[in-house]
């Protein structure tokens, strides 16, 4: 007959973000264990709350499947002596299998006879197997582990009780001083301890004790309660999935309730109100039909609606205290001018080994100037970006950002608008932090994108120059994220930015403006380009680009992010062309021969008088065409390279490059080096794998 088994691990309150991954882990470990133990079952149903991780296994078999297997022993000649008597080896082997020599049969394998026995292992009763779940429970891993009491064992939180029931029977085992039983705990305040009669009763027994153990049901209930409040009040409430998940794992018996705050706080920027409600208090916020934020919130109590007014009043009071603080900062902050704040940035450190924040802004202004010119921004865009660069960190010293650090940039935009700055300037201030995460939003405005790039270039260059280069998992200033930001902004805006030249121009501009840091930035340009290219590799890899194409394009002579991505796209789009293999093989041959060219040929020019056959003239003409194409687009360059493949093939057919005559040989190597340099604009094609 099929059995039902219940395992419940009772814990002190787990962190909300741990609950869901933990129950998934428990289900997986249990499923793996039952499979390994040859125990059949229908389903493992998970249950989880802040205080419990539980599984209910239904349709469990009575016992493990039996095993019949044939076990190979020693060769016959070792198993029997000359007289046909069993040797010690044979007797030992059969004893090891729990059998006797009477059970031996022989089988021939590749001409040699071997001893075999048929072994039968009767499956253990399921109860014995389930007792082994102890090791599954103790093997669980969590992001934070702790010890408690006098124990040395570590777990997510102290284990306080364990229920292990096979139908109506307790499966006995102990973890530390906790022994399994049938007694579980109800809701901390509304429920009582209760004995579970049989494993199948679990969910109903807990519901009677004010615990909704099924996390999905609990979440659906919270959602419907919130929606009902919203509907009753004509509010629009967007239920943030992350917040719902967190709230769900903070409660066992949810009761949603609405609260409000004084309308006067609505003059505070909405972002501040939302941060206070959502991030600090775990409230859902409400809007009206027109999308305007309302002075109301919805929260969820871990309990029923008894004396709910106390809970409402308490939560309103806490929120009001936070908003009162925010209101104070908002009013106080506006009493000072942006110039006052910028002045204060002179005593705020960007980094002790680099400069103050004010000096950073000076450098970024110089960089913005270079970028604006390079990108041919119009006057309006240039003025906005330059003005923004003069003030863009000012909000760091406002009271509001001191209190709500996550609102840096956001408050900068608000305060800049209030101070009468151009909206484009204000927007750039907010956008310069973007992207905030690897996949976060990118600046939408051109001044914002330029300021974001300038800020990131300055951070990476100065930190590198100050010797604080990320290594391994050590990247305390998030320079990798900033480099990814540069790559994403440039590709999003489709801006061509040769980093090598521009970085030099930044340094010169800083020196001209007398704002250069006391650091050797120039020596770090190559390292910074390598650093950015590493990020490009990572991005291309996650975009599932071919590895050899990634290697080829990131080893190109270009430091222009956009060109590198374009090159990857071009190579990928031609990789299936019929002539791709031939094209790349010809060019690879050119590249490898070019590597034999002596260094002094780097500046040499081809002397057509030294040509000895027509194919040389043809190639010379072809290389000139490639050079012209290389000045257009990368697509043109590839097309030209593909076009001259027959010319190259004919050339190698007719020409012995490594001629004995020095002048002839060097002339030919000069030609090939020129062509090889042109291919490098696309990528190091030698890295491509063509089959």
């Amino acid at each position: 007959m099929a059995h039902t088994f219940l395992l419940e691990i009772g814990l002190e309150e787990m962190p909300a973000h741990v609950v869901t991954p933990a129950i998934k882990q428990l289900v997986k470990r249990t499923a793996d264990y039952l499979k390994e133990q040859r125990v059949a079952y229908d389903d493992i149903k998970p249950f989880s709350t802040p205080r419990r991780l539980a599984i209910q296994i239904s349709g469990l078999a009575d016992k493990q499947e039996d095993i019949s297997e044939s076990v190979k022993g020693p060769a016959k000649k070792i198993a029997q002596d000359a007289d046909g008597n069993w040797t010690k080896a044979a007797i030992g082997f059969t004893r090891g299998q729990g059998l006797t020599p009477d059970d031996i049969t022989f089988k021939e394998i590749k001409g040699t006879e071997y001893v075999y026995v048929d072994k039968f292992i009767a499956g253990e009763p399921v109860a014995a197997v389930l007792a082994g779940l102890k090791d599954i429970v103790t093997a669980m891993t969590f992001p934070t582990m702790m010890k408690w009491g006098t124990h040395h064992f570590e777990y997510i939180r102290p284990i306080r009780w364990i229920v292990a029931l096979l139908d109506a029977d307790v499966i006995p085992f102990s973890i530390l001083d906790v022994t399994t039983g049938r007694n579980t705990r109800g809701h901390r305040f509304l429920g009582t301890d209760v004995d579970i009669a049989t494993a199948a009763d679990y969910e109903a027994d807990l519901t009677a004790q004010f615990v909704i153990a099924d996390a999905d049901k609990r979440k659906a209930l919270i959602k419907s309660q919130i929606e009902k409040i919203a509907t009753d009040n004509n509010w629009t409430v967007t239920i943030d999935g992350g917040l719902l998940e967190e709230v769900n794992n903070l409660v066992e018996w949810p009761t949603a309730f609405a609260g409000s705050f004084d309308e006067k706080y609505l003059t505070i920027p909405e972002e501040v109100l939302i941060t206070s409600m959502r991030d600090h208090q775990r409230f859902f916020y409400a809007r009206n039909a027109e999308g305007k934020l309302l002075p109301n919130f919805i929260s969820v109590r871990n309990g029923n609606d008894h004396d709910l007014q106390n809970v409402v009043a308490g939560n309103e009071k806490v929120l009001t205290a936070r908003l009162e603080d925010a209101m104070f900062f908002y009013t106080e902050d506006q009493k000072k001018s942006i110039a006052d704040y910028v002045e204060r940035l002179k005593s705020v450190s960007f980094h002790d080994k680099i400069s103050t924040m004010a000096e950073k802004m000076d450098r970024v202004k110089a960089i913005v100037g270079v970028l604006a010119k390079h990108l041919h921004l119009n006057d309006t865009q240039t003025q906005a970006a330059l003005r923004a660069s003069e003030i863009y960190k000012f909000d760091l010293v406002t009271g509001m950002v001191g209190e709500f650090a996550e609102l840096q940039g956001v408050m900068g935009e608000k305060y800049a608008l209030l101070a009468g700055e151009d909206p484009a300037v204000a927007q750039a201030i907010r956008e310069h932090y973007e992207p905030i995460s690897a996949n976060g939003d990118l600046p939408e405005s051109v001044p914002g994108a330029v300021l974001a790039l300038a800020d990131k270039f300055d951070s990476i260059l100065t930190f590198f120059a100050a010797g604080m280069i990320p290594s391994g998992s050590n990247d305390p200033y998030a320079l990798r994220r900033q480099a990814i930001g540069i790559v994403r902004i440039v590709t999003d805006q489709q801006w061509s930015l040769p980093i090598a030249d521009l970085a030099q121009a930044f340094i010169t501009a800083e020196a001209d403006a007398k704002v250069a840091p006391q650091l050797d930035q120039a020596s770090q340009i190559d390292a910074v380009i390598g650093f950015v290219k590493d990020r490009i590799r990572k991005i291309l890899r996650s975009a599932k680009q071919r590895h050899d194409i990634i290697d080829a394009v990131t080893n190109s002579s270009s430091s222009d992010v956009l060109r590198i991505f374009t090159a990857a796209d071009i190579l990928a789009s031609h990789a299936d062309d019929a002539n791709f293999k031939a094209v790349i093989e010809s060019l690879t041959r050119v590249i490898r021969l070019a590597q034999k060219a002596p260094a002094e040929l780097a500046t040499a020019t081809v002397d057509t008088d030294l040509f000895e056959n027509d194919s040389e003239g043809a190639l010379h003409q072809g290389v000139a065409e490639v050079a012209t194409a290389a000045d257009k687009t990368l697509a043109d360059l590839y097309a030209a390279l593909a076009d001259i493949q027959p010319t190259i093939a004919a050339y190698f057919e007719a020409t012995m490059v490594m001629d004995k005559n020095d002048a002839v040989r060097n002339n030919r190597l000069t030609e090939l080096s020129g062509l090889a340099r042109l291919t490098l604009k696309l990528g190091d094609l030698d890295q491509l794998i063509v089959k």
Partner: protein
Amino acid sequence: MTEKLSMQAIILKLQQYWSAQGCMLMQAYDTEKGAGTMSPYTFLRAIGPEPWNAAYVEPSRRPADGRYGENPNRLYQHHQFQVVMKPSPDNIQELYLNSLKELGINPLEHDIRFVEDNWENPSMGCAGVGWEVWLDGMEITQFTYFQVVGGMAVDPVTSEVTYGLERLASYVQDVNSVFDLEWADGVKYGDIFKEPEYEHSKYSFEESNQDMLLRHFNEYEDEAKKQIANGLVHPAYDYILKCSHTFNLLDARGAVSVTERAGYLSRIRNMARAVARAFVNERKKRGFPLIKDEALRTKLLADDEEAKK
């Protein structure tokens, strides 16, 4: 809530309650400190194998949090009610929740939650795992199982319950400003503390003698190190507390740059680590007298002999 307990009534109730749970009622320690955790009755006693159950009020100074007595919730000095129990009892959460009932807070009339908050005090080499306890959305208690103290893994584990008395009392008395709290019948919190709040804020932010503070920090550090070397754990620890408070004053004055800050914190941490080790050594020499289980005591001291070989 039927009655509104005064601050001192809250303290008395908590003392009575925790004393009934087996805690010794200690007094506030007489050296300036930022939190009850830094009292030797927590920091030192959390280290080593001896059991320890104590409860006390700790006035805690945080110069940078001073607001000239103008902010209703921020204070230069606030009061913590600290409970430490080692080893952590299996029912410590229930004991805590019952203490709230003693204060007239019936959980059925409120929403009480344990929200993850892992505590860390890097300057003292301390880390723990636990929660902040929310009462109707307000954080009223920090609840921690210490894991590392003074850089040493703890064994057994101490549970620490820290009530923010002003917060709790604001809730119990339903006032919006701490200065309106009743400390005792007819005497408001503000009557007692508003003036010192203003003066300490003025002093910490504007008037403190930076050169003197810097000099004191160095002198206190020298003295702490010397006394650690002499095995005089408690005088050494007093000087570490003085270093910590002096640093906090310098920090509030804006006299410490970002890098210097890390340097000061690491100097304090090094002393905290050293004094933690010295404390255990001294307790061992005395034979871990607080361990009443003779067999365990003998075993721990024998382990020590083993370790020496």
